[in-house]
């Protein structure tokens, strides 16, 4: 039996008759949470978010409450900025697209509440350049919200001012990295900044304290205000609270986007029950569980997880529950919720060649190990996959990857080497077979 979806953020997505207009949103109870929030103390909302144990949905899974806690509006003399990261570009991920294009006001409401909680008066919504329609929808939504005084001066008579502007990217994946994104809004090349000292909470946009949150994270804030932090924390599992938007693509019969309570569903249930199993009834070979940067998992692998009484047990891929901590425990990550499924007909060297081209194209070029290494990895895999493999290539490739991870300013170094390292670790025989 398939586990039922629990749609909170996706509640109205694809509902017949539901539109992006503010009137439709208001008819469905829209902006009621903002009306509630604006009467509360900002600190109270921050405390609720902390109690909810909400973790960031962009990829790293960092605690939202902790992130917000780095900034104290009473102690800083500088303005505080908030940026919504809608630069959804991690291959395999297509959840934010649904909210942006089908329920934009949910995001705007979540953003306004988050800005109010953090005493932000100027916020930017950074949307990837390839979403021109999404940008228009959001701009219209902002104008509508402004006309109803949910935005602008003296919002709902509460004496609070806020402006939100849409800022379009221009096709660069690295802009999803929060400090690169900040540089991009400053009108520069999106070279990520080094931390320390450039933590966004301290030296963010225009060298002021800045909060950068993913689309899904900000939408969750609205629902936390609605139900209260403690009630929200009861959804999902401790430390893995709330729901997760999951996108499944690749070799399944019914690819698509779904919303489940965190940890309520296993990878096997997701693939076989929800997504109808593997295309053409082939056998499952491998899964990339959280966007292309997460480490690939073998279908026949055994994975060590903590049992109910904290004892270690070994389970198969299909039995892994979909939550942050379990994926981390088995050596990969739930990342951005993008699950890419590959069946037995797929050549793993071919798959990683595709991803290595992506990373070689998207390296910003600031750090030498990544700029050169991503190209080298692409070239080595290309020759391996096109009849020119050398015997030493598998080790050489791993060596290059090992020398990028941990040696770059931002996490792109890991993002481009983890796939290569994990593909080799899981499917070494296929790489070596290329040299025969």
């Amino acid at each position, binding site marked *: 039996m398939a586990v039922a979806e629990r749609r909170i953020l996706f509640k109205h997505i694809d509902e017949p008759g539901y539109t992006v207009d503010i009137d439709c949103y208001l008819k469905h109870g829209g902006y009621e949470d903002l009306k509630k929030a604006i009467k509360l103390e900002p600190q109270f909302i921050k405390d609720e978010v902390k109690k909810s144990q909400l973790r960031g949905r962009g990829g790293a899974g960092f605690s939202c409450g902790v992130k917000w806690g780095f900034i104290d509006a009473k102690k800083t003399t500088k303005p505080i900025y908030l940026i919504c990261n809608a630069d959804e570009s991690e291959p395999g991920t297509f959840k934010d697209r649904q909210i942006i294009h089908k329920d934009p006001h949910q995001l705007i409401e979540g953003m306004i509440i988050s800005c109010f909680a953090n005493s932000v008066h100027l916020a930017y919504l950074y949307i990837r350049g*390839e979403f021109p329609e999404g940008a228009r929808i959001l701009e219209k939504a902002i104008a509508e919200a402004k006309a109803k005084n949910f935005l602008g001066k003296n919002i709902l008579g509460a004496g609070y001012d806020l402006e939100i502007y849409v800022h379009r990217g221009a096709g660069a994946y690295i802009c999803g990295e929060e400090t690169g994104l900040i540089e991009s809004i400053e*009108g520069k090349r999106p070279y990520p900044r080094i931390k320390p000292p450039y933590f966004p909470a301290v030296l963010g946009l225009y060298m002021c304290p800045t909060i950068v949150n993913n689309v899904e994270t900000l939408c969750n804030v609205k629902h936390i205000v609605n139900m209260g932090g403690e009630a929200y924390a009861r959804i999902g599992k401790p430390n893995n609270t709330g729901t997760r938007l999951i996108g499944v693509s690749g070799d399944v019969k019914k690819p698509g986007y779904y919303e489940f309570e965190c940890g309520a569903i296993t990878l096997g249930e997701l693939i076989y029950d929800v997504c109808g199993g593997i295309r053409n009834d082939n056998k499952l070979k491998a899964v990339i569980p959280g966007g292309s940067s997460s480490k690939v998992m073998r279908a026949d692998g055994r994975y060590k997880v903590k049992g109910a009484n904290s004892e270690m047990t070994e389970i198969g891929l299909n039995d892994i529950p979909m939550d942050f901590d379990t994926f981390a425990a088995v050596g990969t990550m739930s990342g951005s919720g993008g699950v890419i499924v590959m069946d037995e007909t797929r050549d793993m060297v071919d798959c990683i060649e595709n991803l290595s081209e992506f990373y070689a194209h998207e390296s910003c070029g600031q750090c030498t190990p990544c700029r050169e290494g991503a190209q080298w990895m692409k070239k080595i895999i290309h020759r391996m996959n096109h009849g020119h493999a050398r015997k030493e290539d598998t080790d050489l490739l791993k060596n290059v990857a090992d020398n990028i991870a941990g040696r770059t300013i931002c996490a792109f170094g890991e993002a481009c080497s983890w796939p290569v390292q994990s593909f080799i670790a899981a499917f070494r025989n296929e790489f070596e077979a290329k040299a025969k």
Partner: protein
Amino acid sequence: MSISLTPDFEKKLDEAITHYPVSKRSAALPLLHLWQEQFGYISDEAIEFIAKKLEVQSIHILELVTFYPMFRREPIGKHHIKVCRTLSCALGGAHEAHACMKKLTGAQGDDHGPCTSPDGKYTVEYVECLASCGTAPVMMINEEFYENVNSEEKAKELLKKYQ
């Protein structure tokens, strides 16, 4: 500089700049987008004009144009077909879709770069992940987005709208 812009267009540029009360330079990407939508590509004149408008050096604009993949320094075909090539789309037939579009439009050139038809009507190009992996293969034609482009009939049907 002998560039003349319509008052309407200039108004759009000025309006975009107001979104960045802290720093004009932040308006560089929006201005480049507006320019490219209007003129099709970013010329030397565009770079000088925008730099002057934002009170920065020309190099500060040029370095953006050479970095961000969406900006181009030369005109392309009237209709721009961008086919996603990243893993999920590749598994779903992106290479077939790209080849099909090249065939139907007569676009020529190396697959790694933009391929334009001799009549200048179409440019077919691979792009990286368009964030719709569940409906592979996907593509954009100009600003419109299309999913599940998995047959020649479907591709032909799409192209009818872009003559």
